[in-house]
Each structure stands twice: as C-alpha cells, then as structure tokens.
C-alpha cells in the first residue's frame, strides 16, 4: 500500500476542501508536513486514521470545521469528508469517509455516516467495493495499523517497563492471535469430536449380537422341536390312519366275533338251562317211582274196597257210631240207657268185639295214600313231561346255536380277537396326542414369530450400532486429525516464535544500533519468552530501565521498524512528531536512516524537528513537503514547500 493523495473537507481546522498529494516515489519516498504546535499536524494524522479505519477521533474533539459550522445556517447539512487515495497490489483505491451533520440552534447532530472504498477498474472508472471495511482491513489490518501510523510523542511509552503493548504488537504482527485461535479452535473441535464419540459410543453392539445369537439359538431349538412334533404328529397320523383302516377292516370280523360271542352267551345260558332242566327231570323222576306201584296199589285198593263192601273191614264210621252212642247213652231208637244197662254192655261188647280197627284204618289210610300217590304221580308225570319238553327244547336250541356258532367259527376262522373299542380308544389317544403336538407346534411357532420379530428389531439395532460404530470410527479418525493438527500447530507455533523472536531481536538491534549513538554501550537486544524486549549493555546486563526517553524512543522506532518489516505488509509509515524527544545526535541519525527502512514515509514534524532534520540525509529523500499554516480565523491551510 502506498498513499498517493489525501482530500480533506471541513475536517477540524481544515476548512473547505484541501487536496494533498503524497509522494510515492521509490527514491524520494518521504512526504513531510511541518508546522508550529497546533498547526494541524495531528489533525492530518488523525484524518488518515479516521478515513481508513474510523478511529482516532475519540480524544480529538469535534471533527466538523468550526468555521464551516459557524457559517452554516440552522438545519443546514454539513458534510465532513476525508478521502485517501492509495495504490495496493497495482490497483488504485479511493477510501472515503463521510459524516454529515445538521446544524441545530447551539449544536449539531450527526445525520449520516458512510465509508466507501472504490477501486479503479480496467476501464478507468471508480467502482465501489463490497464490504469496504473488510477489504480495507485485508489491505492493512487494523491490528497492525498502529505500528505504521503512530504518534511519536507517545512512542517511548512503548518501551517503558511493564508495557504490554510490545507483546501485543509482536503477537499482532506475527499473526499470533490467528495461530493461537487456530490451535484453540482445533482443540475445541477435537473436544467436540471427543464429546460426540463419548455420547455415541457404547458396548451395546456386543450385547445386541449376543441377544441375537441367543434368539437364533432358541429359534433353532424351537424349529427342531416343531420338526420333532411334526414327525410325531405324522407318525400319529399314520397310526391313526392304520388304526382307522384296521377299524374299518375289522368291523365285519368284529361284528361276527361279537355276534359269535352273543351266540356263545346264549349257549352258555342254554347250558345252564339244560343243567337246571336235568336237575328238575331228575327230581321229577325221583318223584314218580310210585308210578311203578300204582297197579299194585290199585289192586290193593280194589281188594280193600271189596272187603269193605263185604263189611269185613269196619268202617271207622260204625266204630265211631258205637262210640258216640255209648258216650251219649241214647239208642238209635231213642231209648235211653245207662252204663248199667244191658244195652250198654251189649253195645260195649259189640264195640269191643269188633276188635281193633287199626288194620282197617291202615288199609283205609293206605288206600287213601295210594290214591294220593297216584294223584301225585300223575301230577309229577305232567311236570316231568313238561320238563322233558323244556329240556328237549333247550337241546334243540343249543343244537341250533351250535350250528350257528359253527357257521361263525367257519367265517371267522383263525382270526385274532378283534377289540374295536380298544382300537377306537387308541385312535382317540393318538388324536389327543396330535392335538397336543399341534398345540405345542403352535406355541413354538408363536414363540419363533416373537423371536424373529425380536431379531428384526435387533437387526435394526445392529444396523444402527454398526452405523454408529462406523460413524464412531469416522469420528475417531477426525478427532485424531484434529488432535494431530492441534499438536502440529502448537509445535509450529513454538518454532515460529523462536525464529521470529530471533528475527525481531536481530532487526531491532540492527536498527537500534544504527540510530543510537552509544553503539558500543548497547550490545544486544533480547526478547524473552513473553516477548518482553530487553537491551543488554556491554556487560551483558539488562539496561532497559536505565534508557533515557530519547533512547526509549529510538528503541521504539527500531522495534516498530522491525515489526513493520516483519509484518510483510508494504505500507507507509506515518509518524506524528517522530523526533520530538530526540537529541540532535539521535535526530540526525534517525532522520538519516529512517527513509531507508520503509518504502514510504509520511512525517508530521514540528518546525524545530524539521529544522534539525533538514541537516540530515532525510532531505535527500523528500518527495513532497508541506507547510501547515494556522490562520487567525482558526483554519489551517496546506502550503507546498520547496524542498522536494
């Protein structure tokens, strides 16, 4: 960056418009503004800072020209404009900052603020640049601005012990904040990766895979079980079919066997009946033996009857008749008698002469008995006959049934006994088993379905976990990259610090020794780890605290020059009262050497400084010089000098 002109309108004491060219010559690279104290050097210095960065006006009072303000009517718009034209990387730019004020009764208010950065196009037109602040910052960073645009009166403060600005300056020039931010942000990214890894990492996959294997094992077992049950079911099915076939086949045989059994039962009954009948026949037969005596009894009865008819056998009636008469003592003729009567005796003798009636009674009883026997025999004979009929009937039935049984035997042959009920029962048992198998198969299938559903779910989880693991693997790789990059930045930073420290030491020492008059006394300049600068004397002892204000200014200047060169930015050095504290020795040396250190130098010097500087080699590098003339109306004019 090289400034080529400035345009100022109503900025502080610069009333109306001032156009100031700045020397961009390589040889005559110095533009010098000189004037009395208060002539406007610092205002011009401030104008450049304000234009390019919007800074530097905080402690400098109103920026609007008082003359312009006083001349303006109330409500008039009063613009303050500073334009800085410069060339950067062979492109011409125009930076312009405009504030507009409105005049009120006793004061003014800001009504408009604008910063424009335009560049000259290839066609020669000015074209506005987007993001003007950002582009300006990229041309000459705000962070390093103060090492290019600095106030000489405050310069020696830089080297006062305890001033942190050195460290900041070095850090800014070295872009250290960027390196540290790089390191810091890589660390943050690393930690974020680590946090994500921690949140996503798990031991779940193993557990899920175990669970899946367990489920698969269970399914395998259940399937085997189902197969086993199906086999058993099939066997049962076959057996049922066989049994049903057997049942079907055995039905006729079974019926025959069943019917034969019925016949056998009937035969058994008939056998019992026959035995009973035989017993009855036997009993009846035993009762009819008197039958063989019937003829003899009949003959005896006939004989008895004949004897009775002949009266040879008294009848019991007669005996009873006699007994009755004797007992009544009345004759059949009606005449009474007594025991003493003859009649009585006669009758008694008759009765006694009849003898015993026992035989007669026996015969008569015998006859009665014979008659009864005959009667009973006849009755028993009937029974016997009937029983015999029954017996023969039984025998006939048995014969019939035997024939039937023989027929069944023939039809059944040698076939085993068929137990249809048992077969039916077995079929039922098999069917029950089948039902149980089916139920078990159903339960197992249901369990398999559950387990398979679980496996589907587990597969989903596994996919998720694998995805997570892949993601984790990727995250891990990224975390390692971030970590390695962070460490690399840290190492590079250390090396870079070391190299830059040496460079600053060397550069500052070179410039300091060139500018300071006690070259033999100040032998070395060192920067410690905290980038605190120290000057060592010939006894190698730190001597910074013993430096005079002028020496501190020289050291600052040397340091700033080193920093400006170190920054790599090609930018003008703009110094306000750079030699204010310098003794003539230092001033001459500094003024002579400083144009050689920078590509462009813009100096704001007091007349005193200027008069001394004119004695130095500086005079040979002046491209343009301006005299700032402060007028009694409070305005400054910029008048071109004649040293260029």
């Amino acid at each position, binding site marked *: 960056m090289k400034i080529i002109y400035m345009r100022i309108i109503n900025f502080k004491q610069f009333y109306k418009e001032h156009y100031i060219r700045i020397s961009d010559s390589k040889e005559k690279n110095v533009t010098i503004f000189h004037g009395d104290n208060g002539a406007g050097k610092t205002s011009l210095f401030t104008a450049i800072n304000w234009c390019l960065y919007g800074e530097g006006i905080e402690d400098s009072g109103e920026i609007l020209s008082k003359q312009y303000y006083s001349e303006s009517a109330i409500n008039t718009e009063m613009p303050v404009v500073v334009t800085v034209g410069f060339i950067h990387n062979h492109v011409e730019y125009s930076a312009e900052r405009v504030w507009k004020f409105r005049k009120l009764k006793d004061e003014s208010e800001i009504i408009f603020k604008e910063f424009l950065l335009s560049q000259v196009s290839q066609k020669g037109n000015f074209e506005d640049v987007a993001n003007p602040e950002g582009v300006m910052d990229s041309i000459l960073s705000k962070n390093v601005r103060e090492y290019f645009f600095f106030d000489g009166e405050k310069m020696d403060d830089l080297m006062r012990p305890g001033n942190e600005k050195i460290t900041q300056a070095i850090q800014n020039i070295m872009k250290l904040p960027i*390196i540290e*931010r790089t390191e810091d942000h890589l660390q943050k990214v690393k930690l974020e990766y680590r946090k994500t890894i921690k949140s996503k990492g798990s031991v779940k996959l193993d557990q899920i895979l175990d669970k899946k294997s367990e489920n698969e094992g269970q399914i395998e077992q259940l399937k085997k079980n189902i197969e086993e049950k199906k086999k058993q079911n099939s066997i049962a099915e076959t057996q049922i079919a066989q049994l049903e076939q057997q049942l079907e086949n055995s039905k006729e045989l079974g019926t025959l066997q069943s019917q034969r059994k019925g016949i056998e039962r009937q035969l058994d009954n008939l056998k019992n009946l026959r035995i009973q009948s035989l017993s009855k026949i036997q009993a009846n037969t035993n009762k009819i033996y008197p039958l063989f005596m019937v003829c003899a009894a009949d003959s005896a009865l006939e004989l008895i009857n004949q004897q009775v008819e002949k009266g040879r056998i008294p009848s019991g009636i007669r005996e009873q008749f006699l007994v009755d008469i004797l007992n009544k003592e009345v004759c059949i003729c009606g005449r009474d008698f007594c025991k003493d009567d003859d009649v009585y005796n006669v009758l008694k003798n008759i009765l006694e002469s009849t003898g015993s009636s026992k035989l007669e009674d026996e015969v008569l009883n015998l006859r009665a008995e014979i008659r009864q026997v005959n009667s009973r025999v006849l009755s028993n004979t009937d029974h016997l006959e009937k029983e015999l009929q029954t017996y023969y009937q039984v025998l006939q039935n048995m014969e019939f049934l035997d024939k039937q049984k023989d027929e069944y035997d023939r039809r059944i042959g040698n076939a085993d006994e068929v137990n249809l009920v048992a077969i039916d029962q077995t079929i039922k048992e098999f069917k029950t088993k089948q039902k149980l198998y089916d139920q078990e198969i159903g339960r197992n299938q249901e369990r398999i379905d559950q387990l398979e559903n679980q496996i589907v779910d587990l597969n989903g989880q596994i996919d998720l976990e694998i995805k997570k693991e892949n993601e984790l693997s990727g995250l891990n790789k*990224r975390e390692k*990259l*971030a970590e390695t*990059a962070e460490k690399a930045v840290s190492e590079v930073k250390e090396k870079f610090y070391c190299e*830059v420290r040496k460079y600053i030491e060397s*550069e500052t020492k070179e410039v300091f020794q060139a500018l300071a008059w006690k070259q033999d006394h100040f032998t070395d300049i060192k920067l410690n780890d905290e980038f605190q600068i120290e000057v060592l004397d010939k006894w190698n002892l730190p001597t910074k605290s013993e430096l005079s204000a002028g020496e501190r200014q020289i050291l600052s200047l040397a340091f700033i020059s080193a920093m400006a060169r170190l920054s*790599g930015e090609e930018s003008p050095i703009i110094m306000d009262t750079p030699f204010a504290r310098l003794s003539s020795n230092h001033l001459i040396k500094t003024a002579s050497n400083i144009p050689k250190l920078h590509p462009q130098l813009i100096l704001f010097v007091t007349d005193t400084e200027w008069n001394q500087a004119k004695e130095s080699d500086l005079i040979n590098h002046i491209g343009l010089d301006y005299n700032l003339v402060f007028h009694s109306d409070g305005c400054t004019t910029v008048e071109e000098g004649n040293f260029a």
Partner: protein
Amino acid sequence: MNLQKVLSNYFKELDPDISEIVTDVYSLERNYMDYYGSNKGLLIKIKDIIDRVASLQESSEQKGGKS
C-alpha cells in the same frame, strides 16, 4: 523476512494431510479475524476441513483395501 512465508514453510513441513488441515484452518481463522470478527460458524467450517481430509483418507483406504 516474510512471516507468512515462514509460517507457510513450517506448515508445508508437516504430514500432507495435517498440513492441509492446518493451512486451511489458519487461512480460515485469518479470514474470520480480518472480515467477520466473530467465531460464528467457524467450528463447523473447521470440521468441514477435517471432514474433507478424513473423507479423502477413507476413500484412499477403501481403494487400497479393494485393490
């Protein structure tokens, strides 16, 4: 001495992948600092850089694995 060049040379001495990350992140940080002055979205962009390098590594590993 050109600081950027010095730094750049140090970065170049690193392992190529790390060098790429560090160079790009540094450049990103510089742009953020110069233009935005805020870290908004920065970490995501750094992750994008790391992700790009990691993806290339993974792709290269896969190719190596296939061959």
